[in-house]
């Protein structure tokens, strides 16, 4: 049973972290065609060689992966085959007329308690939405609507090739007792604390309970100096999404004096050419602390700089 970090002196709130990445997703021929047509209020499905007809269109049969299909246009009416309510939002499975499959969508303009499977439904179209399944706001009960048929789609628009998408993920990362002490010391004492390895005097940075190599308990706390030696470095000369500072600068993995593992940071430079020979493994560097109040993170070190001589 995990017991070790039950007692500790410092309780920091969690570290908030957000991963927000942009994507350009390709839907493929079938979904791309469906998405191209849906803004025109035309629902495109796939009719596979086996006879299976499904909508929205897919390149591959969801039951067996068959890939031989032609496009059909299916009506915007069907039946509700199952439903539930999640946080006030009714989600149902819809079977469009002429189709052999169900698919999920919102159920709108309906009272949950009065819904029943088998009820006829029709699409409610959104205004001005294109290239998205949300061109249909949802399906609403429409008792008595005539039953439509799937028919050959004829000419279809060129498939949408790129859907812009952003995935945003939020985290509240726990510090745990070791990171809490580390960053509290940085904030309050401008001191970088590691813990000794299980079998030596040098410090592991970041500190941790278990030595990575021996898998034994690490030793006592030890303050490392804010000077150190570069073990590995590269000169960043390119721009990329998510970059936090303009190039050029040096990406450096630095072993602080007193430590045996690497701290990752950066060194500002004026000239790429000069940096090639001046900044390299073995080069001595010192931390330049940020002015003003510290926040308790590696950002409290603004950068490292080369110790001349």
């Amino acid at each position: 049973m995990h017991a070790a970090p039950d007692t500790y002196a410092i309780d920091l709130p969690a570290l908030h972290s957000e991963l927000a990445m942009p994507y350009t997703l390709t839907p493929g021929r079938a979904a791309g065609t469906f998405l191209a047509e849906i803004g025109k209020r035309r629902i495109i499905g796939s009719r596979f060689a086996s006879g299976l007809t499904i909508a929205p269109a897919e390149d591959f049969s969801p039951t067996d992966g068959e890939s031989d299909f032609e496009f059909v246009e299916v009506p915007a009416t069907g039946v509700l085959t199952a439903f539930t309510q999640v946080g006030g939002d009714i989600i149902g499975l819809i079977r469009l007329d002429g189709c052999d499959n169900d698919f999920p969508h919102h159920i709108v303009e309906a009272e949950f308690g009065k819904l029943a499977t088998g009820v006829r439904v029709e699409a409610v179209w959104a205004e001005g939405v294109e290239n998205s399944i949300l061109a249909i706001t949802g399906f609403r009960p429409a008792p008595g609507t005539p039953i439509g048929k799937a028919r050959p789609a004829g000419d279809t628009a060129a498939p949408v090739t790129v859907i812009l998408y952003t995935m945003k993920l939020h985290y509240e990362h726990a510090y745990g007792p070791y990171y809490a002490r580390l960053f509290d010391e940085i904030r309050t004492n401008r001191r970088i604390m590691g813990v000794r390895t299980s079998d030596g005097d040098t410090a592991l940075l970041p500190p941790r309970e278990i030595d990575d190599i021996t898998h034994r308990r690490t030793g006592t706390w030890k303050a490392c100096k804010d000077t150190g030696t570069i073990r590995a470095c590269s000169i960043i000369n390119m721009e990329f999404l998510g970059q936090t500072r303009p190039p050029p600068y040096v990406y450096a993995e630095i072993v602080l004096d007193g430590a045996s593992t690497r701290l990752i940071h950066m060194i500002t430079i004026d000239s790429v050419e000069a940096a090639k020979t001046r900044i390299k493994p073995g080069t001595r560097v010192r931390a330049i602390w940020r002015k003003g109040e510290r926040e308790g993170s590696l950002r409290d070190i603004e950068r490292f700089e080369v110790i001349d001589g």
Partner: protein
Amino acid sequence: MGRHVGIVGVGQTHHSRRRTDVSQAGLVREAVDRALADANLSMDDIDTIVVATGPVLFAAVNQPEKWVVDAIGAQLKPVVRVTSGGGAGFAGALAGYYQVAGGFADRTLVVAYDKLSEGALQYSISTLYDPFWGREFAVGIMGFSAAYWRARMDALGHTEKAAAMVAVKNRKNAMANPYAHVKKEVTVAEVLASKPLCWPIKLLDAPPISDGAAAIVLASEDVAAKSTTRPAWIHGIAYYCEADNAAERSMLLSEPLAIAARHVYRAAGITNPRRQFDVVEVQEPYTCFELSYYESLGLCPPGGAAELIASGATQIDGDIPVNPSGGALGANPIGAAGLIRLIEGATQVMGRNESHQIKDAKLALVQSGGGWANLRGCAVLGA
């Protein structure tokens, strides 16, 4: 030792910078269709499937095998996702190997892919770093790859020029590879003069960003014959790691790779890799790594890589050709790259490599890896 396992069918897509005609799942389907056709099998013949891709953030689909299953018609079969960053394809093959060797399956399909055009590559790889410790200073794969090269440069003589020779060799070899999409011969001078990205890595030291998929069929000895009279037998395969920020982690040698090689060589009876192997495929992906792998794999002594590349021995007509396919410099769909190296090695010993068949190749060495340059493996394939 369990059951003998062979690669009996292979397939890969024609890799490209951006495939806007297929979805991620559709891309996978292409490679699977090719591998099954090559193995003279249909999906019905497949017992189990391993799906390997790079990290979720490459493509915004969490546990994508659960989506891909529909596209490959594998509903209700045993399907598992194995992931290991850049080495995912190789790690997937390793998992598949044990499914067959351990008697869980007779035929296992391993498919690996990445559709890198759909995401922000370096940004997403930077999330490899601890959010508390260094992530904001991360520069994707390239930052640390270049930094570790810099650490080897002076100590081992892995000069920019030596690495440039790797670029010249692999890019030339890729010209004949029907699946590669970067096809341009370069000179040492051009590599050296190309734009520094993360110096010492320059533009022409770096692989492309690719969309691509690859698949292999693994089979036990009992059933291999249905697919081919000449499988590529796996004589040894292993994938080792080292803790990312362990004290005294070697910057000079890839210790996990050296350990994997020792293990695999023992299993395969390799005592002199330089002389015994007919062909080698390594997952560079940056030129500097190929130099390092020469040493970690024992093709030359530590510090001997520059001399090895300069000697011409690793050229197609050399005594130990490395990356006759052009390697990752020709195409680099990251999650698939390790499996592509296995395919290239396998087809060499099967006698039907499409880029540059090495005459009478009987024994191939394949290397792959990923993570923070701390996950590394290799395999020995034989006719």
